[in-house]
């Protein structure tokens, strides 16, 4: 059941009405949300509900034991068990096929003919998100940052709450559990902002991402014969497609959660205005990057063990972050690319700080320059993310480096790109320069934007509920 379908709209309407008919009876609301979330997940594939509950119950029990236990060895054993189970689930369902195929390919290169039988393991939707969410919970309990949740219903609500179940944001227990374990309300502001988030989320997904998907799919279907202009515009188009797709999803998730009385964490903060790689990861998929920081980068030693180790930690974190996105070498390449960007930025930081001008105008121009350079580095980074194989990456790079002024379909791509981002860019730029710019405008300005967004959705929203890119992760 996709967020951008009438079926979901009906489902959500029913849940919304039932939720608030229960008034302040938050336990009953939790029960309703758990049932609704199971239904939501079962609409994808009911067979994987068992896996979801297995993952959830393991961490529920382990966390209770962790809290009750004071023996460090026993606690370590328990957390190892929990993390192993979650990573085991991920490894089995997400990575086994990949590692088996990669191993066989390596052996074949070494002269050993190995033909592994296809395992045919289906990737359960949302597995990367809910396993990471429960892992962060048990690790926090282990670190005694939060108490273990005793109420299974509350814990099930935390893990399976449908707005964030299949593609995040990866919420932290310390943030969401207090909201679950107490009466919730729907003030007018939350009602308005939640609805507004859903509207803008649909706009990003149905208008921007799905329309640009058409351009990108066309281009990536002929990577070997792309003209230079086509390749460049296709990459720009994908940059906005994936932003529209994922941040659109997140906006709808946050909006629906808000209408149910929850406040989800911000997951995107105008990432293409980032001025350096570190800034980018504080704006893009914030819930994942902060997860990787807290549960991978810092345990690896963070920046506490000298510069070489810091750089290695940064690189390893991004490499694994890339692999988290998908079981493919192209995602590993993407992670490595961003790891290298972070490493390079860390090395260049003292120099950049020295040359950065201080004046208002010069400082502003410097920011624009940094922003432009960073944007293009990010766009280039999306190439391995979008490509299915390393060969496709190579072919697109060759196309970009190709001489000649042939346009091919580039003008069409540019036309679509321009049309799709014409409203997005001014809105985001205004918000970047003046936070809450949109909310502080007069009703007529907001009304104009709402009307424009609605009209674009109605006249040019891509038909059919097209799936979200991040559902495959």
């Amino acid at each position, binding site marked *: 059941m996709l967020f951008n379908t009438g079926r979901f709209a009906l489902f959500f309407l029913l849940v919304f009405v039932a939720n608030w008919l229960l008034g302040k009876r938050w336990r009953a609301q939790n029960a309703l949300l758990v049932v609704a979330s199971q239904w939501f997940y079962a609409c994808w594939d009911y067979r994987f509900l068992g896996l979801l509950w297995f993952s959830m119950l393991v961490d529920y029990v382990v966390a209770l034991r962790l809290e009750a236990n004071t023996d460090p060895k026993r606690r370590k054993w328990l957390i190892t068990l929990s993390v192993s189970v979650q990573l085991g689930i991920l490894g089995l369902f997400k990575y086994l096929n990949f590692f088996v195929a990669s191993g066989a390919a390596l052996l074949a290169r070494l002269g050993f003919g190995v033909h592994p039988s296809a395992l045919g393991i289906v990737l359960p939707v949302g597995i990367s998100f809910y396993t990471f969410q429960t892992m962060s919970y048990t690790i926090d309990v282990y670190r005694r940052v939060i108490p273990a949740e005793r109420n299974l219903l509350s814990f099930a609500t935390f893990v399976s709450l449908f707005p964030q179940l299949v593609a995040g944001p990866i919420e932290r227990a310390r943030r969401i559990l207090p909201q679950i374990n107490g009466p919730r309300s729907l003030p007018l502001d939350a009602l308005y902002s939640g609805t507004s988030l859903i509207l803008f989320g649909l706009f990003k997904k149905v208008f921007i991402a799905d329309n640009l998907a058409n351009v990108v799919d066309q281009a990536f279907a002929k990577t070997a014969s792309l003209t230079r202009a086509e390749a460049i515009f296709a990459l720009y188009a994908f940059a906005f497609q994936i932003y529209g797709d994922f941040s659109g999803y997140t906006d709808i998730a946050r909006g629906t959660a808000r209408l149910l009385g929850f406040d989800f964490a911000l997951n995107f903060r105008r990432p293409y205005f980032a001025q350096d790689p570190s800034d980018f990861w504080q704006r893009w998929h914030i819930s994942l990057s902060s997860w990787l920081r807290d549960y991978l980068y810092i345990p690896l030693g963070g920046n506490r063990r000298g510069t070489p180790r810091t750089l290695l930690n940064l690189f390893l974190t991004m490499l694994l972050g890339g692999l988290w996105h998908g079981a493919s070498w192209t995602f590993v390449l993407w992670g490595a690319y961003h790891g290298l960007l972070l490493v390079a930025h860390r090395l260049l930081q003292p120099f950049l700080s020295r040359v950065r001008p201080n004046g208002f105008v010069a400082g502003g121009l410097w920011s624009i320059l940094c922003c432009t350079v960073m944007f293009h580095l990010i766009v280039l980074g999306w190439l391995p993310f979008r490509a299915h194989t390393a060969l496709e990456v190579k072919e697109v790079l060759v196309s970009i480096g190709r001489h000649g002024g042939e346009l091919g379909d580039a003008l069409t791509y540019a036309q679509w790109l321009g049309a799709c981002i014409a409203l997005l860019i001014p809105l985001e730029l205004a918000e970047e320069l003046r936070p809450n710019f949109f909310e502080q405008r007069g*009703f007529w300005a*907001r009304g104009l934007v*709402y*009307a424009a967004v*609605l009209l674009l959705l*109605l*006249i*040019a929203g891509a038909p059919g509920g097209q799936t979200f890119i991040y559902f495959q992760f």
Partner: protein
Amino acid sequence: MDRPSSTFSFNWRRLPFGALFAVALLACLELGVRAFYKPPYVSLETYANNYPVAHLYGFEGSRACFPVGEQVQCVVTQDMNVIPQEFPRKKPAGELRIAVIGASISWEGPRPGKSNGNYPSRMFEQLERAHPDRNLRLINLSVPGFGSTRQLVRFREALEYEPDLFVVHTHDTNEVREDKRLAYVRNLHSGIAGKLLYSYAVVVLKNWWNGVLRMPAPPPVATSDEEAADLDISAKRERWEKGLELRVDTMLELATARSIPVILVGTSRSDTKDFSSSTGRALNGFFATRVNGSRVQFLDVPALLRAGVKARPHRVFKDAVHYNAEGVRLVAGALVPLVEGALAL
């Protein structure tokens, strides 16, 4: 005394003025469009039932072009008013109207009202000459490229002009053009997307976006089953034939319910010896089964052309499907007595 906290207090300042203003703007837009624009379809029902296969929201660029002065102006054919003719909706007393529903073969051409070498015009000239005392009017709603789905829409539209006779010329070639994936039916004209077509503003702006800006909507997603079904040519052919038969039957029902006689013009091709392909033969066979006295008549064009060529060896086609002057002469000449019989001239 403090007020009880449960007392409802209305605070107008908390109203969502931005959203209300947006709704007001959209309402004004809709009203403005309604004031100046006639939508290119009769109703949502006919639109949804008869445009299901138009893969770009029903506004794909099947364009008809007219020379206007030194320039050529093109019109998206689905604007319906593709032929710049205007007919009074209310039929004047004593007028007899002949409505032609077809595609390029019967298309009125760029200069309506004059003979453009197409058989409806030629037929009409002959009728006017033969019956100078009768007030006859030809309403040719043929549009190049239209298959039976869109022709049915024009047929319904033509009913508004109170015709006394229909000449229907469907051709199997255009069925192929119109037969897109079944998924389009589901995705484009069902649910909210279908309901939105009630809005004139949405229709006009979609037309503008898809046509003027040349920004075709991406094709909808078809399921793997539908993709597989789409590759099955025999199933597709069966679907085309059944669909065409169903729509011709609907036209006949609509006409019969109003006691309007119909002449079905048979389909023909130049690239076979008997001027008929296998699908054409099947279609003509179907037409023949629908003959009902002077209420439903059938002009067997391949037989007519064969006889004409036998009597006077000449080419009768200018390409695979369109008649040349000789073909037009033969078809128009054969239609005249059928029309006279149907209208009791």
